[in-house]
């Protein structure tokens, strides 16, 4: 393949990655890393560099409209970002000290179970939750534009969510990818935040977490301009389209897309654990 063909094909694949990444709050890396390494025979380090670029592009591309429309909760994002960035520092520190294969297998199994859990939409009773004193003190409760008007929500189990976010950060430092998944799951399943708010707030956060590790990858020479260029432009276009779709989409269908992508990520992690890096 010559550079022109390669650029065109990678841009198309990245468009799809950006679309899925912005709809699910996972970033584009989940789709991009295995495709680049398996089908385009890109070295894993270049793929990780490109994936990092794709996560920031998805996050910033979609966040503009998610923040403006009032979906992402910037307080929840900033509060939890403390846990994530600290966790990422710990993960990077531990990365050379503990074997990641066992961790990848556990994480993979957790993701497969989560794919099953997060498929189910919430019942009306599960939506009406009491005020949590800590969430109220931290001013985390908010509202978002539902299909039939603006809907308020009360955040639950803040300490559990905060701890899971610390774990999400550590995992992303250890395994390279997968922090978006834990972020969405922690907000959706533990803190009982509405699904669209969970995915868009995760989308807001993943860019910040990725920027924290961008310096390391850039200075190690992982970020190649020729490869990252079609990735960035494709992902950006995909995430802009994705952010338009999410606003009007039914939560039920978003949950299905999310659970399918999580399933793929879980299988990736199991593969990673048993046979080494993809």
């Amino acid at each position, binding site marked *: 393949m010559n550079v022109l063909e390669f650029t065109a094909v990678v841009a198309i694949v990245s468009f799809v990655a950006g679309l899925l990444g912005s709809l699910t709050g996972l970033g584009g890396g989940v789709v991009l890393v295995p495709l680049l390494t398996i089908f385009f025979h890109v070295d894993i380090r270049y793929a990780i560099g490109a994936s990092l670029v794709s996560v920031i592009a998805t996050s910033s591309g979609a966040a503009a409209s998610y923040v403006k429309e009032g979906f992402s909760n910037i307080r929840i994002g900033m509060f939890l970002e403390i846990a994530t960035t600290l966790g990422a520092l710990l993960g990077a520190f531990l990365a050379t000290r503990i074997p990641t294969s066992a961790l990848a297998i556990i994480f993979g199994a957790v993701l497969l179970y989560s794919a099953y859990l997060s498929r189910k939409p919430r019942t009306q009773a599960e939506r009406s939750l009491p005020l949590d004193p800590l969430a109220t003190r931290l001013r985390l409760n908010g*509202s978002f534009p539902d299909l039939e008007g603006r809907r308020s929500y009360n955040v639950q189990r803040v300490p559990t969510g905060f701890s899971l976010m610390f774990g999400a950060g550590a995992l992303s430092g250890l395994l390279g990818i997968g922090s978006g998944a834990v972020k969405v799951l922690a907000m959706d399943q533990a803190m009982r935040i509405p699904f669209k708010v969970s995915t868009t707030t995760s989308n807001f956060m993943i860019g910040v977490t990725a920027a924290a590790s961008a310096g390391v990858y850039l*200075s190690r020479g992982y970020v190649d301009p020729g490869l990252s260029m079609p990735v960035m432009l494709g992902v950006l276009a995909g995430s802009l389209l994705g952010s338009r779709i999410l606003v009007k989409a039914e939560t039920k269908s978003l949950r299905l897309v999310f659970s399918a992508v999580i399933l793929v990520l879980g299988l990736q992690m199991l593969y990673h654990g048993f046979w080494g890096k993809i």
Partner: protein
Amino acid sequence: MPAAQAPARQSQPFKPQPWRDRRIEVILGNLLRTGVLISAAVVLLGASIYLSRHAHDPADYGVFRGEPSEYRTIRGVIQSVIVGRGRGQGIIQLGLLLLIATPIARVAFSVVGFAIERDRLYVVFTLIVLAILLYSFLGSGIGL
């Protein structure tokens, strides 16, 4: 447009809240969009130069060689753009650096936004995030 309240549901324990942080959200949204558009424009410019010269070269990323040092640090990238040796790649790399800067700018602006709202707790939270972010970004040897 005033924030519309959700229609009342039976036995709803929510206390309906006004849409807070509206102003910060609009400014943050515009900041992000501007940052992304500028970086995309720079990458596109670099891409057109790069593709016009290398379109028919073989694309091979199978072997990791690592980027040359001029694409690994902020100073290196800026120098390669000024000197023009970048052949497009330097300009692309500059666009990528601008892209990486948008989330950092977003956090930095949030500090200001929460300060305007006199929300001390969140000024502190956001400053902590900004400090960790700058520590790991600048501490990585990327240089200034």
